[in-house]
């Protein structure tokens, strides 16, 4: 057994409430980190993962304080040391890779300076050696042309590049322990897979121990040797990664794994009811009691201890774990969607749509000349059938939201038209759309915090569309609101609440209710579950599916998460740089990805299974604009044919199973290559 480098003993951290009560957000945490191992800490937002990781650096956020226990790194008792002493350890012995590198790099200092600063503090190199070391570090994190990158400011790099810089900076002091707080959250799937692969390489290469904090079990599965599952400030399960992921013996972990949509499984993930208790609200009993489907009477009164099971090398905090131990069925619970055959009854047709963000020069506007020959979104042709869920997928910057905004009328199309119900061409200009067109198309946004007016109660929020489109008032209005709330499974008493009094999932339900209030034909969903925890995400997805079945609504669903798209959509359109690459029924696109870009995207998806490794087939270069001519994917295509791809726009080809792709390689040939792999 290798030596322990970080010991956390009975650690409790809390804050003082306004009434002066001490409320703990970490309760009695005890765990060890061994030399050279990577430990994943996983849990929903608010479970205390980041607080725990920061405490391992002797850092307690402003407003929090240590209530008891200790963190011992080698022989240093970190939480009892003063800042002067900690400065010698931080960055040198223990380094941190932050959640959002974009915000964690100081905006007014160049990349090179920020790395140099760490080197100056923690090494004895002279100026020349440091300069060499900076290049070496940037090289190690696989950034192109380190010399020029070093001279840039943080905002001049893409998200993935910023994250790499942060990794490089953390490695500057050659630390024994690396703490990573959600290092890939917010990155594109392909970028995320590459950063994780880099981290794995560094862990092997340098023998550094890592603590990897994330809400994403998919990412955790790729890097961890051991996993700690946290719930409401406690460790509920801890053990070897493989066992935890394959045979979770705590009901919470079981439910969590169940609520993650998987590529390999069609249908909606099972959802867990309720949400994590707020700190300070739970008095006695098991903290998971309200949401647990194995709960018994004794769980209500007594809280279980963390019990170590020798033969499994696992610790678990549950009275009934044995029930899950016996449960040999590995089958994932997933409610299958009825993929009933959708009648060809087109409700929305996008014809040759292009959209440009470039501002037209005044003169060209007067002469009505089109100057932007290379618009952000170009040549989009999609026919959408009534009652289907069509998803737009692609990396950030692929124009998914842009297309949605145009359909909603928030953004003018430059060319082409959008037809509703086969005969009405929707106006380009929101102001010129009539009330029934406006009612017919509703939007749900990514972030309910921004789309719900914080000064209105839920009742007022839902009353708005009802008054506007149906002129309801009085008793009728009220009954309709109660009805709507019921549909999204919220009680009547939510009417008087303000958005800040709702949890993330509840807010998104209100946003869904508001969209349905207009009795729309089409609902545009822009990353509606991205801001939610997986268990909440599963619930919202199930809700959306249920409502759709009840009302026959058509969804246009935008997401960067391919597994979510797999779970909810009937048809997928894959976009790259504002151009369509592939479109077809979900089950076929996922089973036989034929376009090289679809192959790249699907290969990078992380599954919460240590045995399914992502396939990285293309570099994660960021292109800031689409190529002038030829295939849009030429810059990154692993199967590029040469000049043909660079000069000629590829033709559409339709495969036997209904997939349409845009590529110069014959679709049969592509299918064969990919099946051969």
């Amino acid at each position, binding site marked *: 057994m290798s030596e322990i480098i970080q010991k956390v003993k009975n650690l409790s951290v809390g804050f003082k409430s306004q009434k002066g009560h001490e409320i703990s957000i970490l309760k009695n945490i005890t765990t060890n980190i061994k030399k050279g191992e990577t430990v994943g800490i996983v849990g929903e937002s608010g479970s205390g993962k980041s607080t725990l990781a*920061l405490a391992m*650096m002797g*850092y307690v*956020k*402003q407003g929090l304080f240590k209530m008891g226990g200790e963190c011992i790194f080698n022989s240093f008792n970190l939480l009892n040391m003063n*800042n002067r002493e*900690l*400065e*010698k*350890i*931080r*960055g*040198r012995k223990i*380094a*941190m890779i*932050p*959640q*959002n590198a974009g*915000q*964690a*790099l*100081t*905006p*007014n*200092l160049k990349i090179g300076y920020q790395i140099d*600063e*760490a080197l100056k*503090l*923690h090494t004895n190199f002279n100026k020349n050696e440091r300069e060499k070391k900076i290049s070496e570090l940037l090289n190690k994190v696989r950034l192109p042309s380190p010399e020029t990158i070093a001279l840039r*400011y943080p*905002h*001049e790099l893409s998200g993935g590049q910023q994250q790499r810089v942060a990794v490089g*900076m953390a490695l500057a*002091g050659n630390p024994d322990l690396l703490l990573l707080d959600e290092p890939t959250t917010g990155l594109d799937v392909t970028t995320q897979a590459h950063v994780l692969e880099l981290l794995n390489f560094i862990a092997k290469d340098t023998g550094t121990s890592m603590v990897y904090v994330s809400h994403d079990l998919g990412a955790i599965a790729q890097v961890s040797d051991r996993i700690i599952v946290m719930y409401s400030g406690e460790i509920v399960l801890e053990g070897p990664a493989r066992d935890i992921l394959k045979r979770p013996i705590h009901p919470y972990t079981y439910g969590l794994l169940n609520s993650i949509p998987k590529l390999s499984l069609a249908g909606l993930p099972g959802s867990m009811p309720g949400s994590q208790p707020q700190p300070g609200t739970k008095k006695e009993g098991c903290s998971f009691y309200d949401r647990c489907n194995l709960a018994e009477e004794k769980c209500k009164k007594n809280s279980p201890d963390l019990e170590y099971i020798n033969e499994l090398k696992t610790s678990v905090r549950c009275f009934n774990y044995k029930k899950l131990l016996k449960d040999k069925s590995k089958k994932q619970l997933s409610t299958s969607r009825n993929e009933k055959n959708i009648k060809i009854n087109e409700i929305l047709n996008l014809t040759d749509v292009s959209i440009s963000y470039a501002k037209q020069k005044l003169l060209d506007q007067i002469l009505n000349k089109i100057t932007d020959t290379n618009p952000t979104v170009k040549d989009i042709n999609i026919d959408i059938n009534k009652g289907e869920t069509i998803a737009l997928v692609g990396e950030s910057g692929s124009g998914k939201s842009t297309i949605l905004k145009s359909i909603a009328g928030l953004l003018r199309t430059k060319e082409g038209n959008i037809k509703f119900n086969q005969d009405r061409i929707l106006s380009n200009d929101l102001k010129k759309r009539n009330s029934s067109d406006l009612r017919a198309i509703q939007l749900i946004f990514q972030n309910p915090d921004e789309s719900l007016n914080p000064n209105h109660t839920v009742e007022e929020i839902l009353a708005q569309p009802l008054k506007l489109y149906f002129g309801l008032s009085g008793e009728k209005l009220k009954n309709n609101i109660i009805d709507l709330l019921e549909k999204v499974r919220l009680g009547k008493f939510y009417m008087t609440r303000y958005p800040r009094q709702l949890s993330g999932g509840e807010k998104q339900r209100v946003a869904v209710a508001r969209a349905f209030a207009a009795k729309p034909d089409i609902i545009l969903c822009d990353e509606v579950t991205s801001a939610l925890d997986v268990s909440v995400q599963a619930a919202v997805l199930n809700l959306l599916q249920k409502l759709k079945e009840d009302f026959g609504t058509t969804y246009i669903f935008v997401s960067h998460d391919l597994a979510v798209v797999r779970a909810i959509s009937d048809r997928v359109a894959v976009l790259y740089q504002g151009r369509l690459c592939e479109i077809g029924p979900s089950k076929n696109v996922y089973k036989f990805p034929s376009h090289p870009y679809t192959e790249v995207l699907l290969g990078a998806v992380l599954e919460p299974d240590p045995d399914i490794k992502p396939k990285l087939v293309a570099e994660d270069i960021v292109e800031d604009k689409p190529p002038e001519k030829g295939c849009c994917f030429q810059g990154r295509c692993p199967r590029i044919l040469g000049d043909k791809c660079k000069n000629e726009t590829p033709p559409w080809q339709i495969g036997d199973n209904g997939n349409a792709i845009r590529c110069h390689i014959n679709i049969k040939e592509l299918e064969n290559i990919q099946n051969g792999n």
Partner: protein
Amino acid sequence: MFFLIIKRILLGLITLFIVSLITFVGTEVLPGDACTTYLEREAYGAALEACYKRLGLDIPAHERYLSWAYNVIQGDFGYSLSGQMPINEVLGPRVKNSMVLASAAIIIGIPLALILGIITALWRDKLPDITISTVTIFAMTIPEFISATLLILVVAIWLEWLPGIVIVPTDVTVKELLPNIILPVIAIAMIMTAHMARMVRSSVIQVMASDYVQMAILKGVPYWKMVFKHVLPNALLPAINVVALTIAWLLGGVVVTEVVFNYPGLGRLVIESISNRDLPTVQALAIILASIYVSINLIADLLTLMLNPRLKTLQIRK
């Protein structure tokens, strides 16, 4: 970047144009005019007409505006009525006197505000912050005319340390002026400093809570180095515009304070020429004060543009 600067300058010029129009129209619609005030009881018949003729008040208003604007652009504000001399000559020493007053207030106020703001932010909720914050909030709420009067009462009348009222000729030299300006400067600087210190404090606190400062701490950067390299440049950048606004706003304070202390500056001239209905001078003052206001804001915008790496590249790329 170049276009942005041109755009800002153009906007400033438009503002000036509008101000000139408003003052012109304003003085036009007020009952009574320069001649009736000047001639008082003799304001009738031939004398009045002669006066109108001499001042050019007999030609239509828009023509008068155009010729006036034309002259102003060339730096000629016309003729003061009460002083009976070119306005430029009246203004010269007054501008100088006010400049001395304002610059003294700025030279003392800005560094003091920065220091106080930074101290209160870094020792947030500790004793230094609590004391300084109480004092600054108190100072912020007292208008100049009260603080000026109190200063005169305490320092000049009770303690008899300094002269309470400034009794010097308008064309006094700077050296003679200095001992007289101490109290007015304190009165002006107090409220301005308090405002800026609060602003700097909240800006520094905000940056201190940012992810990149937490990162710098976790990187092991020593405290003061972190403050100077990571915190202050980012915290003070947004403060530039507020400082500019405060300085521009100080102009109003200058007027009040000058009147209370009988200080021979632009501010007193404003009040004097309004009560004398010396309309040409009022117009000239309005334009001058507006130009100062506009240029201070312009300078602040340009400084922000130049110092913020983010804006710089944004502009180059576009």
